[in-house]
C-alpha cells in the first residue's frame, strides 16, 4: 500500500508538521505501508493548463504522478481567506476528473480560527467527491494553539491524528478487498 501525505501549502509549517505526524503514525503501526511526504513548499508547481497529467514535466510531473500512483492520500490543508490555498486547488486542477477513483483520501485542517471549522465540509469534500475519492469522513481540525515550536502539544490532537492514520489504512485495506472481490466476480 502506498500512502502519500500532501501538505497543501507553499508557506507555513503547521500543516507539514501535522501531515508528517500522521505519516509517522502510519509507518509505526503499519511498517509495510510505504509513505511519501509531498510538501508543496518543496516543489515549483506550474498552474494547470488542462493537459493530461503525464504531459507535465519537472516538479509538476513528479507530484502529479506520485499522487496518481498512491492508494491513499492524507491531505493537509491550512485555511487561507476562508478556503483552501490556491496551491492545493491547483493540485486538483492538474489531475484528471477521476483521479481519486479507487483511492482513499483523508483530511486534516490547520486553521488560525475555529470559525473555519466547516471549510473542509463545504469546500474540500465536494471536490474530493467529484473526483471520486472514498473519503475518511472524520477529519482532524487543528488550531494554532495546538502547536508549539513546530510540534503538536495537544494530546487530544495527537490521539485524533493516530485515529486518522488508522482509519486511512483500514479503509484503504477494506475498499481494496471489496474491489478485488467485485472484480474477481466479473470473470474477465
Amino acid at each position, binding site marked *: 500500500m502506498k500512502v502519500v501525505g500532501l501538505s497543501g501549502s507553499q508557506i507555513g509549517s503547521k500543516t507539514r508538521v501535522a501531515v508528517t505526524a500522521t505519516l509517522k503514525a502510519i509507518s509505526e503501526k503499519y511498517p509495510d505501508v510505504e509513505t511519501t511526504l509531498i510538501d508543496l513548499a518543496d516543489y515549483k508547481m506550474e498552474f494547470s493548463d488542462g493537459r*493530461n497529467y*503525464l504531459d507535465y514535466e519537472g516538479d509538476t510531473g513528479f507530484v502529479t504522478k506520485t499522487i496518481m500512483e498512491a492508494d491513499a492520500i492524507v491531505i493537509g490543508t491550512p485555511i487561507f481567506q476562508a478556503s483552501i490555498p490556491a496551491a492545493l486547488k491547483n493540485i486538483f486542477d492538474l489531475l484528471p476528473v477521476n483521479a481519486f477513483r479507487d483511492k482513499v483520501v483523508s483530511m486534516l485542517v490547520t486553521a488560525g480560527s475555529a470559525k473555519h471549522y466547516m471549510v473542509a465540509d463545504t469546500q474540500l469534500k465536494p471536490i474530493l467527491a467529484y473526483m471520486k475519492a472514498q473519503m475518511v469522513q472524520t477529519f482532524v481540525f487543528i488550531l494554532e494553539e495546538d502547536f508549539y515550536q513546530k510540534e503538536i502539544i495537544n494530546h487530544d490532537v495527537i490521539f485524533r491524528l493516530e485515529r486518522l492514520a488508522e482509519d486511512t489504512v483500514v479503509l484503504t485495506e477494506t475498499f481494496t478487498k471489496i474491489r478485488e472481490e467485485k472484480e474477481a466476480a466479473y*470473470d474477465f
Partner: protein
Amino acid sequence: MEKYRINPDNGMEFGIYTLGDHLPNPATGERISVQERLHDIIDYAVLAEQAGIDFFSVGESHQEYFATQAHAVVLSAIAQATSKIKIASSSTIISTSDPVRVYENFATLDLISNGRAEIVAGRASRVGLFDLLGYDLHNYEDLFEEKFDLLRLINENEIVNWSGEFRKPLRDAQVLPRPVNGSLPIWRAVGGTPASAMKAGFAGVPMFMAHLGGAASQFKRTVDSYREAARAGGHDPAQLPIATAGFFYAAETSQEALKELYPHINEGMKKTNGGGFPKQLFAQGVDPHNIMNIGSPQQIIEKILYQHEVFGHQRYIAQIDFGGMPMDNIKKNLELIGTEILPAIKKYTAKK
C-alpha cells in the same frame, strides 16, 4: 452526401480505425518491434478490405507507445496494398502541421489510391507534440481553428488567398496536386461533447464523433446539437455525414469478448492515458444500450442497428487493435465482421 463520397442508399458504412499504438501484449508483457507493428497495420488494412469493410484509418500520436507519427506515409503504403477500401487519418492533428503540406500529402494519397483518401482533422488529446513540433500549447484552440479553416479553404479553392496569425499569408497560392475529383472529404474529429460538435455543425463540416463508453442516448445529445448548429449555420444537416468511432470486439459469447479485450484496454490506457478502465464500467459495455460494441456477433449487430436508429449516422468505425492485441484475434474479428456482422448491417440499413 455525394461530396463526401457517401451513398446512403448502400447502407451504413462500416470501417476500422487504429490509433497506431505500439503497446505490449498484457498476456505476455512483450511488445513486437515497431517495424513489425507497421507491417501489421498495413496487413490489417488489406485484410479489412478482403472482409468487405468500407473504410480504414490511421491516427497520429507523437508520444511513447505509438508507431504511426508519420500516418500519411503509412496510409500511402496502405493505398498501394489495397484497391477498394477508403483510407483516412484518425486523426490528423492539423493544429501542429502546415495545412498546405497536409493537403499536398492527402491529395497525393487520393491520386495514388484512385480517389479513396479522406482527412479527419483533430486537436490531439495529449499535447507533447506541441513542444516536439515547435508550437505553443497556449494557442491550442486558435491553432486548430485557424489551420482547419485554411485546410478547408485549400480544399475548396485551387488558388488560395489567405492571411492569419500562425503562418505567413498566401497570395494567389496554388496548392498542388489536386485530388481525383477536385476535393477531399474533410471531417472534424469531435470528442463527444455537444460544445465541440456544435463547432463542426456551424461550419457545415462532417463530424467524426469518438466515444469511449456510456449510454448511446447520451451521445444523441451531441448528434442533435451538431445537426441543430448546422441548421443555424445555414447548412442542410441531411447533406452532412456523421461517423462514430469506438471500441469493438466480437467473440462467440459476450463473456469471451470481455475476457479477451479487457486487459488490452485497461493496461493500454494506463500506459497511454495514465489511468485504467474500471471493470464495472467495462462490464456495462455489453448492454444493448451501451455504445461500446462488445459481444457476440448477434449482440453487436443489434447494438450497431440500435445506434444507427438513434444517431442516423452514415458510418461506424471500430477500434479493435488497441493495447497490443495479437494479429490472430484481429483476424478472427475481421472474419466475424465479414461473414456475419457486415452483411446484416448492410441488409438492414441499405435503402435499395
